[in-house]
């Protein structure tokens, strides 16, 4: 039986179809989830894809966080279900307090779209087990509200607990504190990051690299072995 990975569509979500494709390329079944449905259709994991849900009006992720589907996802995430938030999905996760901190306008105030080098700081999460600790990867980055911020105390705690999952290399693209590109919750099942692994799963498309595929094969491995 193949693993079922849910991909949520909020109004204004953009990368849902790409994320479904990435899930399929990795060999799992992609299950579309609709923001108004509380029912997660027995999926084994959930991805909150990128985009501008509700236009990013008010704050990125602020309105989506209150959708019916998030009620169940918050509950399930706390119970250990793997959840990945990419870009806008990461913003939804911080607004939902599943992950600490907040996202601010990039320090240079512009939308930035580029191929971004990252270091995978830890393979000890549901979404990074297929990478080596310290492995360097390049995947697309594209956002305007990507500056990660949190209180010093929270940052220290994240570092101490090994919950900084990705760090920007070769230049911080948005002013994120401590070059943080992605973090996890304490249990390691909930991961959020700004760059887009789903855009780096096919050699021909985008940057021509497949460095993002490991996210999806990682969760698949975990689900199959579970």
């Amino acid at each position, binding site marked *: 039986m193949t693993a079922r990975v849910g991909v949520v569509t909020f*109004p204004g979500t*953009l990368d849902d179809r790409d994320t479904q494709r990435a899930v399929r390329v990795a060999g799992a079944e992609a299950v579309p989830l609709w923001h108004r449905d509380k029912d997660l259709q027995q999926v084994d994991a959930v991805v909150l894809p990128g985009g501008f849900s509700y236009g990013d009006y008010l704050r990125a992720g602020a309105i989506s966080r209150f959708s019916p589907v998030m009620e169940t996802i918050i509950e399930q995430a706390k119970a250990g279900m793997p959840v990945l938030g990419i870009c806008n999905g990461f913003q939804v996760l911080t607004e939902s307090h599943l992950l600490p901190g907040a996202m601010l306008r990039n320090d240079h105030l512009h939308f930035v779209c580029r191929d971004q080098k990252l270091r995978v700081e830890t393979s000890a999460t549901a979404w990074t087990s297929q990478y080596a600790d310290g492995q360097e990867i390049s995947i697309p980055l594209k956002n305007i509200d990507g500056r990660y911020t949190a209180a010093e105390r929270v940052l220290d705690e994240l570092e101490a607990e090994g919950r900084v999952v990705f760090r920007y290399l070769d230049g911080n693209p948005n002013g994120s504190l401590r070059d943080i590109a992605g973090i996890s919750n304490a249990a390691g099942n909930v991961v959020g990051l700004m760059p887009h692994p789903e855009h780096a799963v096919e050699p021909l498309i985008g940057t021509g690299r497949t460095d993002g595929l490991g996210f999806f094969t990682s969760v698949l491995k975990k689900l199959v072995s579970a």
Partner: protein
Amino acid sequence: MTLDAVRHLDTVTHAAETPEAGQPWKELGLKEDEYARIREILGRRPTGAELAMYSVMWSEHCSYKSSKVHLKQFGEKAPQTDALLVGIGENAGVVDVGQGYAVTFKIESHNHPSYIEPYQGAATGVGGIVRDILAMGARPVAVMDPLRFGAADHPDTRRVLPGIVSGVGGYGNCLGLPNIGGEVVFDPCYQGNPLVNALCVGVMKHEDIHLAQASGPGNKVILYGARTGGDGIGGVSVLASETFDATGPSRRPAVQVGDPFQEKLLIECTLEIFREQLVAGIQDLGGAGLSCATSELASAGSGGMRVELDTVPLRDATLSPEEILMSESQERMCAIVEPDKVERFLAICEKWDVIATVIGEVTEGSQLEIFWHGEQIVDVPPRSVAHDGPTYHRPYARPQWQDALQADDAGKLPRPGTSAELREQVLKLVGSPNQASKAWVTDQYDRFVQGNTVLAQPEDSGMIRIDEETDLGVAIATDGNGRFAKLDPYTGAQLALAEAYRNVAASGAKPLAISDCLNFGSPEDPAVMWQFAEATRGLADGCLQLGTPVTGGNVSLYNQTGDVAIHPTPVVAVLGVIDDVNRRTPMAFKDEGHLIYLLGDTREEFGGSAWSQVVHDHLGGLPPAVDLDRERLLGEILISASRDGMIDAAHDLSDGGLVQAVTESCLRGGHGARLVVPDGLDAFTFLFSESAGRAVVAVPRSEELRFTDMCGARGLPAARIGVIDGDEIDVQGEFSIPLGELRAAHEGTIPALLA
């Protein structure tokens, strides 16, 4: 001017009874004979609402009254082709790209609003063209944005450029449409008239093509999307007042605020409606709003339509009927739906949080009838509004100064005397604002979204995969060169066409069809009208020769400050198809040892060149000669070479000439090049000439023989000019420049200007 709310409602009956009532036709921009013609059509004076409709629909913007006698040639001279499924006249043309797929694309301008409010002007420009594409039944899959600004170092450019760029990005990024290309050009002639052209391309299956027509009496007219507000109402303030002062009221600039989130919902909602085959006809609301949508839908159908204007959802309850008819509120669509499908239609809209309202129905008759609080305020033959607008044969004449301009030969400009000077001019060229890297702009656009982007800026063309199974794809490039067109508008238009064609072919795709945006000054100036006539003639002749029909486009006139018009700026978008995107040809030189070939003939051609601008601030002489048969041959060679794996990089030569192209390919690939000036050419001409019909390619040594044999057999000059090697560009016997130095010059300019 405030609206007089208690003003008497001008019904059709009232209009018939008060033939002598004065009307503000002049203030609304109508000419006396146009007003007389409206009275003749109706057999009475128009009501206020009718006058509103005619005045916007008969405006230059909507009726093409100055340009249509010239645009006719695009139909008359159209090349024979099976590729065109829907031609000029619909929201956008549709091209058959094989495997059951059809592609629709169109380019439009949003120049004037973008100067007044750069962010919103550009944003709503993107929004408008996306709805045109959607209305054809297609899923929009990419956008492009050819932009032109005043001098790079002018203080106002700092306001206009960042605003426009973030508007294009803010809207397109939020919609989830990859931006795969465009242009950024600086020239003082665009100082008070920046050009914001926007292109959208969409994909559908043949059977999904939808047309803007209202037929089938009893079918419902559904308005859906955003509520209607009081924004962007051109001349309505005139109508709303009873008295007019001598000078006439000032025209309020028609600036609207876009809501890309609403548009994203509109796209998804509309695509779901298409999937369930719920519409009989559909039209987007753009310029002239409901006036345009209702009259065009009715006119293209059986004619009869009845609309209850009270039912239109409003953002502002105080709007008058005239204002509702003329409002250009964004993010709205109008659909014709069979009665038994209405319920499902509304349910899908509800799912996507899109407001949808039945505002009327198709009727047996042939009149467009609009009611307000039960009273009839419009009763017109829709065709007379939508299609029978005035046509002008405006006088045109070759300007007096044209001869002097052409006589001012750029070939006589002082050329670099030493190798050191040559080197210096190369650096100056690749670092000049027009030739510098545009990454500062394009990095603000999402080029990855939708996961089908094969090539995007700075590649020669943008390429999108449209079928994941077969890897079928399309490529598009847009080009225009106002300097060339100023020197000779006929040739300039053909050079724009040739360049876009060459760009598409360089990436390995076969050019199929074009769309164009014609940006010119005032049609009331005979010199401008001559430029327009020459450019359209050049384009039509060029398309016939290249076999690429014009599928649609847009005209933007009155781009001028005082008496000074912009350079005539025809912008051409060429669409090509590639049956397997795996064999696309990128521009990067990335394999050391591969041979660099220059294809085509290099002549001493510097009129309008980047070199003449950058080094001498000069514009004069004749633009490069055009040979479209040669362009076609070059295209065929580039496509064959890509299909047979004979080349692994290609880059077309255009502004800046060979040295610019080689620099870009080297920087993109991270490798240098050793170049040798071919026999018969001097180094200066070799590096800077802008002869058309040329490209550079990288050929693996193993393929060299096969490649040169092919070129020889087909009669295309191919000169081996060097090899990919090292980390500098070295021109033998002249100079060498490290890539780092080139990169600093090329990439540092725009950020420094805008910092």
